């Protein structure tokens, strides 16, 4: 439906559009991070494109790829009724250079979405007016949606009660023990460096 959009993008940004595809009917353009803002501005302001509605922004972590984090933007045009997905990849293994330009000036609605991506995946948005954590608390360290953040590593804000205080066993009883049920994620999500810290975190108190 919106091959027009992809064609126009390819024509305008030639080498910066790294890849386009329309898998499952969703038109997608992968662009270079340096032209992120330019592409967005074009999509927003060109009357032929007219993407006035910001739909969604999210980050996906691919630890095996370089660059590692993919920023995915979905847009819709109220005028033409077409949609497009724009992606870019940033950041190396240690999340260095994990930043793209903010698009809040184009779509004010992007504000919280960018904060969320920053919070959960760790992408910095250059020029965002108020980039701070949104879903997690400010004391939280790390970015939980990165594949190498263990899903069950908690960082409590207040110390848990001890068993002596409670007079009860507080650890989970079978079948809810940590060795029961589903494993978290797949092999690749648990690099050896993190595996060691994995056993003793449950009752670790947030003293740092």
């Amino acid at each position, binding site marked *: 439906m919106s091959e027009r959009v992809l064609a126009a993008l390819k024509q305008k940004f030639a080498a910066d559009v790294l890849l386009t595809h329309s898998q*499952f009917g969703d038109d997608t353009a992968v662009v270079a991070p340096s032209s992120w803002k330019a592409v967005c501005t074009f999509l927003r302001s060109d009357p032929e494109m007219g993407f006035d509605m910001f739909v969604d922004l999210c980050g*996906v972590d691919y630890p095996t790829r370089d660059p590692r984090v993919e920023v995915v933007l979905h847009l819709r045009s109220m005028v033409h*009724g077409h949609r497009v997905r724009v992606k870019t990849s940033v950041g190396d293994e240690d999340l260095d250079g994990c930043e793209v330009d903010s698009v809040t000036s184009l779509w004010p609605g992007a*504000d*919280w979405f960018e904060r969320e991506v920053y919070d959960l995946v760790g992408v910095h948005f250059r020029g965002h007016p108020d980039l701070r954590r*949104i*879903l997690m608390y400010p004391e939280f360290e790390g970015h939980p949606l990165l594949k190498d953040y263990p*899903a069950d590593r908690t960082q409590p804000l207040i110390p848990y009660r001890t068993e002596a205080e409670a007079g009860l066993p507080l650890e989970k009883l079978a079948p809810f023990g940590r060795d029961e049920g589903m494993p978290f994620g797949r092999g690749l999500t648990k690099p050896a460096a993190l595996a060691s810290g994995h056993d003793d975190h449950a009752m670790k108190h947030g003293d740092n």
Partner: protein
Amino acid sequence: MEPIDLDLDENDLELPSEPMHLNMGPSHPAMHGTVRIVLELSGETITKSDVQIGYLHRGFEKMCERGSWAQVFPYVDRLNYVSPMLNNVGYALAVEKMCELQVPDRCQWYRMILGELARMSDHLTCTGAMAMELGAFTPFLWFIKAREMIWDILEEETGARLTHSFGRIGGMANSPTPALKEMCRTAIKSVLEIVAEGEGMLLKNRIFLDRLEGIGAISGADAIALSWTGPCLRAAGVAYDVRKAHPYLKYDEVDFDMPLGKNGDNLDRFLIRLAELRQSARIVLQSCERMADDGPINCDDPRVMLPPKQDVYRTIEGTIQHFKLIMEGAKVPAGEVYSYTEGGNGEIGFYLVSDGSGTPYRVRIRPPCFAITAGLSKLINGAMLSDIVPTFGSLNMIGGECDH
């Protein structure tokens, strides 16, 4: 007695003019328990506000990377927990889009019936709670009574009152009960009566109207810019409904209107919800007419569907298929998809990434509430402190969805 302030200057009587800081929530009766608003007040006027969410962040997206594709259903139930069935259907459609599956007609109608019932319960809860927060307790009790009637149907169909986990990839967990159509027809009649009664009571109430009219208004262009969707956007006069703009299931075959507001204020949002409730009722009744009484409810694709129980016990193929689907999960083709449906609060989208295995690589939900709550600050800045309650109530912020 002599007046004591005769020769006081005007200014002497004035209150100190530094702004006052006030913290509303997260445990505040009108904040749904999960939102905190830090306000800067000058008198009773809000000069600045910071809406903080995340008090109900439950790691939905991370949890989905843990199990199989089918095991995501219970989690999506608890996103918008006022209309879980719409999330179920939305997620099922997203996975089916990846598997390039089309469910049988009967199932599509069935999904529409259950989904619209869920939407009715969503709007009932929202409008009822909104009235309650403004002190009108009776309509709330009535609307909850009406909601019980809808929940009775859903319970009869799915077995659970609230969290159904009823969707399946390629169908539904069970076929409709024979009594479904009859139940819908009776319940909808009484629900609409209750709604009319409650509405009559509220819309004749001066206090209620005064607190809604003209408060928290937003223009259509602003609402689009903030990426609002759903009833809140339509209240601002923008005609965008996923069911109309990008019809899925059988929405293009039923006849329903898209009510639109004019001012985008609280009253419009309230009225739009009630109007949509009536449209949903129409859809349910039409779907009841159109749904066949028998026929398959699930598609018969062995990639995703469990074999019938008899085959599992009697044939080796059935056993193997069952084992593979349960232990490894249905294999979904590698790739990425964004699928969107109209949820209770607007466009609820699922962006799924699959690496071809039985476990989702990434499940991203685009929560309509998130964008809507982001606009709250804009609505209340400059308004009075007491306006927060109706404004927040009319946005229908659902913690589970907003905070994932």
